[in-house]
């Protein structure tokens, strides 16, 4: 297997503290969003509890001034770390606008994807575009390319599109990082009944793609591994697969009932140590944080959550006219007529 090795040089404490603080925000917001759903603020939500290290750590390896992120529906933590406004992010769960209200071009984060595996080929195409740009500009080797990082789950690894994406990325040597969060489950189906052979990273080998297996609950390792993958891709050496082993500690979504397919005892056994606890204890032990710091970070996260909640609650439904407005750049006449008829009938009511 074409395993990419990566430096184990420790991250500076300050950086780890920054990551911990971001992860704390993410954890608190995630927990709150579930509560919001129960309170009727959101119609639904896809919790990512337990995947904070994988998501925040992977984005930390990117240069968001030029790289591009392709998330699924479970990347709240990645979106937050990438700088997406969380009110605009939550718009998808508020049922305000599918994909979210954030500007995908400005944020360099594509809209929330509901189609499993749907974004991987986009990350290949976008990355190939960076290669073409560099070629047109006559850039020298080693290249210094913007990188596309696409998230996928263990379940997504079964989709044909993922295979086509990895093969295309391999053939065109695109600067694409396939970041797999293997969280043990695809709704109710465990990885061992999903991923023949047991490893998504191993698939990479079949395409001659560099790959890395990493503990997705160790944020430092995730940063290091993703940095290595990104550096590989950035230099023009081709794509990379990072498989971050983690665990979906919560339900698949707020309408899921995991008790139907796994017991609490299994959850405890398979989930292992909570990545939040592990990092906090480690930083406390190392003296990088004090208990007061932790409390302060927690309060900040709470204040942040309140601001986001206010934004989400303030969000009204979008004007119905937008249904028509955004279908095309150039709206065709029959659609204009439908919009007019819709307006007339709505006004009457």
């Amino acid at each position, binding site marked *: 297997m074409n395993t990419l090795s990566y430096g184990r040089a420790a991250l500076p404490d300050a950086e780890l503290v920054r990551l911990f603080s971001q992860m704390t925000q993410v954890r608190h917001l995630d927990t709150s969003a579930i509560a919001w759903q129960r309170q009727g603020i959101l119609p639904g939500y896809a919790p990512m509890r337990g995947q904070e290290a994988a998501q925040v750590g992977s984005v930390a390896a990117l240069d968001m001034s030029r790289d591009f992120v392709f998330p699924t529906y479970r990347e709240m933590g990645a979106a937050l770390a990438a700088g997406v406004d969380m009110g605009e992010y939550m718009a998808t769960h508020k049922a305000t606008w599918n994909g979210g209200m954030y500007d995908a071009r400005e944020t360099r984060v594509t809209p929330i994807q509901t189609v499993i595996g749907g974004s991987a080929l986009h990350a290949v195409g976008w990355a190939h575009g960076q290669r073409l740009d560099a070629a047109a500009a006559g850039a020298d080797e080693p290249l210094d390319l913007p990188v596309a990082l696409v998230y996928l789950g263990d379940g997504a690894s079964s989709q044909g599109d993922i295979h086509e994406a990895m093969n295309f990325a391999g053939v065109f040597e695109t600067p694409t990082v396939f970041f797999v969060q293997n969280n043990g489950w695809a709704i109710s189906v465990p990885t061992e009944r999903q991923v023949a052979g047991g490893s998504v990273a191993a698939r990479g080998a079949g395409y001659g793609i560099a790959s890395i297996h990493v503990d997705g609950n160790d944020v430092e390792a995730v940063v290091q591994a993703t940095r290595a993958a990104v550096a590989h891709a950035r230099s023009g050496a081709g794509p990379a697969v990072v498989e971050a082993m983690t665990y979906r500690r919560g339900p698949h979504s707020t309408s899921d009932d995991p008790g139907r397919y796994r017991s609490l005892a299994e959850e405890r056994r398979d989930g292992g140590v909570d990545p939040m606890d592990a990092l906090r204890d480690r930083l406390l032990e190392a003296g990088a944080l004090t208990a007061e710091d932790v409390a302060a970070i927690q309060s900040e996260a709470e204040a942040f959550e309140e601001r986001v909640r206010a934004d989400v609650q303030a969000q009204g439904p979008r004007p119905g006219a937008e*249904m028509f407005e955004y279908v095309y750049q150039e709206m065709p006449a029959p659609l204009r007529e*439908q919009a007019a008829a819709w307006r007339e009938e*709505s006004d009457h009511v």
Partner: protein
Amino acid sequence: MSNAVATPPVDAGAGRTVPAERTGRTTLSMNQAINAALHDALAENPRTLVLGEDVGRLGGVFRVTDGLQAKFGADRVFDTPLAESGILGMSAGLAMAGYHPIPEVQFDGFTYPAINQLVTQIARMNFRTRGALPMPITLRMPSFGGIQSPELHSESLEWLFAHVAGLKVVSPSSPHQAYHLLRHAAQRPDPVVYMEPKSRYWQKGRVDFDEPGNLEGAHVARAGRHLTLVAWGAMVSRCLQAAEAAAEDGLDVEVLDLRWLSPIDADALAASISKTRRAVVVHEAPKTAGLGAEVSQLITERCFGTLKAPVERVTGFDVPFPSGSLENEYIPNIDRILYGIQRVLEYRRG
């Protein structure tokens, strides 16, 4: 662990024996009725299989397959990896091996990755093999909107399935129909797409096991004299509501539940509209090239001489199905149906 080896059913052997036929009447929600139909299809024919994402232990995201794996074992009711083309392609192969697979696609909008297997393989295998390898596959999927789902969880795909030669397409509008139409579909030697109106899953209704009624063709859900509303799936109950509202204005509206979207029961359309001389077709899919066009044209072909006005279409707009907060703007509501009725009534030849 060998995945290939089945976990033994809780109630071992149950799958091999036909249970006492259900008799009499009962009240069930639609998802319970479908569950009962799947149960009985599995019990009746040992070569019937249920497969799909999360249909096993979880019992499906809408609990439609609840309890079936426990009853019939993981060889007959099984979870697949997350790949819709895989699910349908595997079903085609199982049909070649003499099985009757009942695959589930978890949501309407995730049928798109499987369209190639459905259209180029399943729909054509009987034709290609001159009948040697028929495809007795019943493809189920939760369909249509109405429950504020995420993107691509509210698609209406009957326009697509109905065009494809080799497929048949049916959508029930009540628990009774859901039970009997699924039993009927699962006994057919041809592939049938069975579209479950997800917004009606929890709606209860009486199921009569002894009197299935006619299972082919359309069904008059409400008889009337002045105008015919044609609908299917979740729009049937909405049309019934619209008909009630119209009745307050003294208008006697017939509601024709099309049920079979392929083949379409043109005789029933003609019978109804020769009587009422006016029709409105209602569906959730976008208007352009939606099935409403076909239904309208069939009506026009058969009833041109008696029609008082062109058939009116009240449908989704030519836009992607929007997010939940806009869904009521998109899906035909009672007001829009009443406006459609009004346009037909007020029509004057130019």
